[in-house]
C-alpha cells in the first residue's frame, strides 16, 4: 500500500516536473490566456525584482531570462555587439522577433551596463511598452537607503497604475506580500531538502521547480510546490557516493539544463545561486505596516547576495564561504557566463580565496546557447573523483 502511494507521488512529481520543463521553454502567456485577475504581463530582467508590485497591479510578473540554447539569433546581431553576453543578446532577439511583443512592460536593473542598455533598446524598438530601469541602489549601507528604495518602488507603482489604468491599493500589496511570503517559505523548504537529503532532489529538478514561477502566478506556484514537496520527501532513493558541492555563477544568465544534468551526474549540488533573485529575501517580508517600506527594508536587511550587488556587510568571498559552511559542502563549482564582466571578475576573486582557504573548486565558463557538454562532463568526472579521493 505504502509502495503504491509512493509510486503515485512519484508519478505526480514527474508530471509536475514535465510541466515545469514545458514552462521553461514557453514564451510569456498572451493576455487572452492569462488567469483571472490578470490584465497583462510585466517582463523583468534578473537579478531581483519586487514582483509583489506587479502582482498587486494585476500584471503577471514574467522573468525575461534570454533564449536558452534553442533560439537562433536573426535580428540581435545587428543590434548588439558580439562581445555582449548571451542573455542580453537573446533577450534583445526575443524583443525584436516579436516573442516579447505582448508584454505590457519590461523592467531592467543596474546590475551591469549591458542590462541597463536593454531599457534603451526596448524604448527604441518596442516604444508601446513601458521600458524602465528600476534603480535598485548599489549602496545599501548608508542610512536613507530604505527611504530611497521605497520612493523608487512608489515611482514604479505610479508607472504601473498609469499603464494599466488601475490603482494599486495597499491592501492588494499586502495580499501579494502574503502570497510571496508563502512562496519564500516553500522555496526554503525545497532548498533544505537539497541540503539535508540531496539524493532526493537533484539540482536540475529543483531548478525546474523554482523556474516555473517565471511563467505562472505565484499562487499557482505555491500550489505546485505544496504538491511537489511531500512527494519529494517520500522518495526512497539511496544516497550515492558523490561529493557535496556548491554551484555559483547562475545569478543572471542561466546555464543550459543539460549542464546542470551533467553536474548532477557526478555531484550533489547542495546549494546554488541559480535565479537567486527569486529567493532574494532570506526571511519573510513584514505583512503589516506600509507595504512598500516593508519591501524596501527587506531588500536592505533581509537579502541574499550576488556578484552584482555591493554590500559592505557581505563580501563576495564571505558569502561563498557561508554557503559552503551552511550546506556542508566539500567543494565549489565556480562558473561564469561568457562575456559576463561581473561574473568573470568574481570568478578570479573566488578562486583566489578558495585557494587561500584550501577549498577545492572547479572553474567552468558557460553560455546559455551552448549545446555540447562532453568536455564539461569529463572535467566534472575528474573533479568528482579527485574530491572523493581527497575526502575519503
Amino acid at each position, binding site marked *: 500500500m505504502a509502495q503504491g502511494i509512493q509510486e503515485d507521488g512519484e508519478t505526480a512529481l514527474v508530471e509536475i516536473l514535465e510541466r515545469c520543463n514545458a514552462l521553461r521553454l514557453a514564451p510569456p502567456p498572451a493576455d487572452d490566456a492569462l488567469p483571472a485577475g490578470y490584465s497583462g504581463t510585466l517582463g523583468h530582467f534578473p537579478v531581483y525584482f519586487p514582483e509583489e508590485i506587479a502582482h498587486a497591479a494585476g500584471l503577471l510578473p514574467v522573468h525575461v531570462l534570454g533564449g536558452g540554447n534553442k533560439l537562433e539569433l536573426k535580428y540581435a546581431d545587428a543590434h548588439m*555587439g558580439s562581445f555582449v553576453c548571451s542573455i542580453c543578446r537573446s533577450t534583445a532577439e526575443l524583443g525584436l522577433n516579436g516573442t516579447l511583443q505582448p508584454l505590457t512592460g519590461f523592467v531592467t536593473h543596474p546590475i551591469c551596463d549591458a542590462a541597463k542598455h536593454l531599457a534603451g533598446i526596448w524604448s527604441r524598438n518596442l516604444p508601446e511598452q513601458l521600458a524602465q530601469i528600476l534603480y535598485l541602489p548599489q549602496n545599501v549601507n548608508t542610512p536613507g*537607503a530604505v527611504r530611497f528604495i521605497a520612493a523608487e518602488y512608489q515611482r514604479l507603482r505610479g508607472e504601473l497604475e498609469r499603464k494599466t489604468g488601475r490603482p494599486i491599493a495597499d491592501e492588494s500589496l499586502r495580499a501579494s506580500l502574503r502570497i510571496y511570503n508563502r512562496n519564500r517559505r516553500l522555496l526554503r523548504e525545497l532548498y533544505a531538502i537539497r541540503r539535508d537529503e540531496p539524493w532526493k532532489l537533484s539540482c536540475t529538478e529543483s531548478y525546474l521547480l523554482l523556474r516555473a514561477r517565471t511563467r505562472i502566478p505565484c499562487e499557482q506556484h505555491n500550489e505546485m510546490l505544496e504538491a511537489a514537496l511531500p512527494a519529494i520527501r517520500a522518495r526512497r532513493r539511496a544516497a550515492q557516493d558523490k561529493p557535496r558541492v556548491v554551484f555559483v555563477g547562475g545569478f543572471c544568465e542561466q546555464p543550459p539544463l543539460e549542464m546542470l544534468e551533467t553536474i548532477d551526474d557526478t555531484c550533489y549540488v547542495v546549494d546554488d545561486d541559480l535565479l537567486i533573485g527569486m529567493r532574494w529575501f532570506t526571511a519573510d517580508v513584514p505583512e503589516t505596516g506600509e507595504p512598500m517600506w516593508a519591501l524596501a527594508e527587506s531588500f536592505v536587511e533581509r537579502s541574499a547576495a550576488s556578484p552584482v550587488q555591493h554590500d559592505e556587510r557581505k563580501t563576495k568571498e564571505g558569502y561563498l564561504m557561508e554557503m559552503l559552511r551552511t550546506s556542508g559542502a566539500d567543494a565549489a563549482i565556480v562558473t561564469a557566463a561568457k562575456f559576463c564582466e*561581473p561574473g568573470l571578475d568574481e570568478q578570479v576573486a573566488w578562486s583566489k580565496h578558495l585557494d587561500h582557504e584550501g577549498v577545492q573548486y572547479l572553474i567552468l565558463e558557460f553560455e546559455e546557447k551552448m549545446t555540447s557538454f562532453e568536455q564539461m562532463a569529463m572535467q566534472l568526472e575528474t573533479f568528482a573523483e579527485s574530491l572523493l579521493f581527497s575526502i575519503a
Partner: protein
Amino acid sequence: MTIDTVQTPATAAPAEFDARVEGQRLMKEWYGGLELAGERGQPVANVFVMGNAIEILRCFDFQLVFPEINSLQTGVRKVSEEYLRLSEDYGMSPDVCSYVKADVGLILKEQKHPAGLIPKADIAIASNMCSTFIKWAEIWERMLKTPTFVLDLPGQRAANWEVRPGDAQHAADARWVEAQFRDLIERCERITGRRFRMERLAEVQSEVNRMVGHWNNVMALNRNCPAPYNAMLDGLTYIGIMNVYRGTAEGADFMARLEEQLRAQVARGEGKVAGEKFRLLFSGTPCYVSMRRLVELFESWGGVFAYSDYLTFAAGGMDAGDLVYDTSRPLESLAEVTALAAQRGLSNQFFAHERLAQNVRDYDVDGIVFHGIKSCRFVSSGMADTRDYLNKRLKIPSLYIESDLIDPRYWSDAQIKNRVDAFFESLNQRGGPAPHAGRAAAVPLASEASIGGEA
C-alpha cells in the same frame, strides 16, 4: 550671452598659451604630486571620472588618483600590453574591461607606472554610473585593502525622461545623494582626522562653477565652422584637466585661457583641420594606443570631430546643462547638481539616441562615427542599436568601427582604414559636405554659452 558674443572675440589669445603644452605640464605636476603624497602626509583617494564627489574630497586635501587615467596613460605611452598580459596571467579574463586589467597589472607591478609611483589609496569612491567601477573597487578592497565607498546615483530611468531641478523626482533623488555625501564626509573625517568645513566646500564649488562655465563655452565654440579644435584629440587633453583639476584655481584658469584662445581662433576663422570638409560626431571612447592614428585617418579626408559624447560623460557630465552650484547652500546644492549630472550627462548613455539626435543638430554634423569597445559595455552595448535607430530616423550617415581602449591587440589598422575610406567615399557620393561658405555656423545655445562665462 548671444551668438554675437561667442563670435566676436576681438582680443587675440596670449601667444604663450599652448593648451597642449600647458595641459601636459599640469598632468605632469599632478603625477608629481601623487609621488609626493606620502612625504607630505597627504591622504589619497581613488576616484573615477563619472560620479566622484571630488568637491568633498578636496575639502580634506586628498590627493586624487584617477585609475582610468593611469590605465589610459599606459596606452598612450605604448606599454599597456605589458600590464594587460600581467593581469591575464594572474587570471583576469580577456573579456573584461582593459582599464581594470591594466590597473591589476599596476598592482602586480607594485604600483610602478610609467609616469611614476602611484600611491595606495586611503579610500576609493566608486559610483554606479559604470557598473565596472564597483567591481574594480572591490578588487582594490581585496588586493590593497582599500576601504570603498559606493556612491549610488539614481540615473535616467526611461526614454523621454525629464527631470527638472526642484521637481518631486529630483528632490527625492537629491535627498538620497545628500544622505550619502553626509555619510562620506563622516568617513573622510575618520580617515583623515580632519574636520569638514562647509566654507571650504563653497570655495571649491566656486572654482568648479568658474571652470564649468568656461568648459561649456569651450564645448559651444566647436559648434562654429570651421571647428577650432578636434574633440577626439585636443578635447582629450581638455577633459584630462577637467577631471584632475576640477575644483582648483589652476583648473579654472586653464579653462579660461583655453576659452580665450579658442575665441580668438574662431574670430580669425581658423579651424583645427585645414580645409575642413566634414564635421563629425564621435560616439564612444578613444583607442588610446592608436589615438593619433585614428584622428589622422579622418583628418586626411578633411574630417573633424566637432563633438564627442566622450567629452561629456568622461568629464563628469558637467556640461549637461545649467549645472551651477549654489554656494550659499553647498551640500544641498552639491547633491542636486550631482543628481542632475548623473541623469543628464552620464546615465543618459543608456538612452543615447535622444542625446545624439540633439548633438547632431547642435554641432551640425555630417555623420556619426561609433567606436565600439569590446571591453567597455557602458559605451558599447547599445551602440549598434542606437546607430540603427538614428540611421532610420535621422538618415544621418554613420560608421561603426571596433577596437579597444588600450589593448593594441584589437587595433586592426588596415581594416579600420578601409572602413574609414569607404565612409568618406560614401559621404562624397552623397554630394559631399554642405557648402560651408553659405552655411550658417552652428552656434551655441545662449543658455549653455552664458553659464559662468566672462566674455
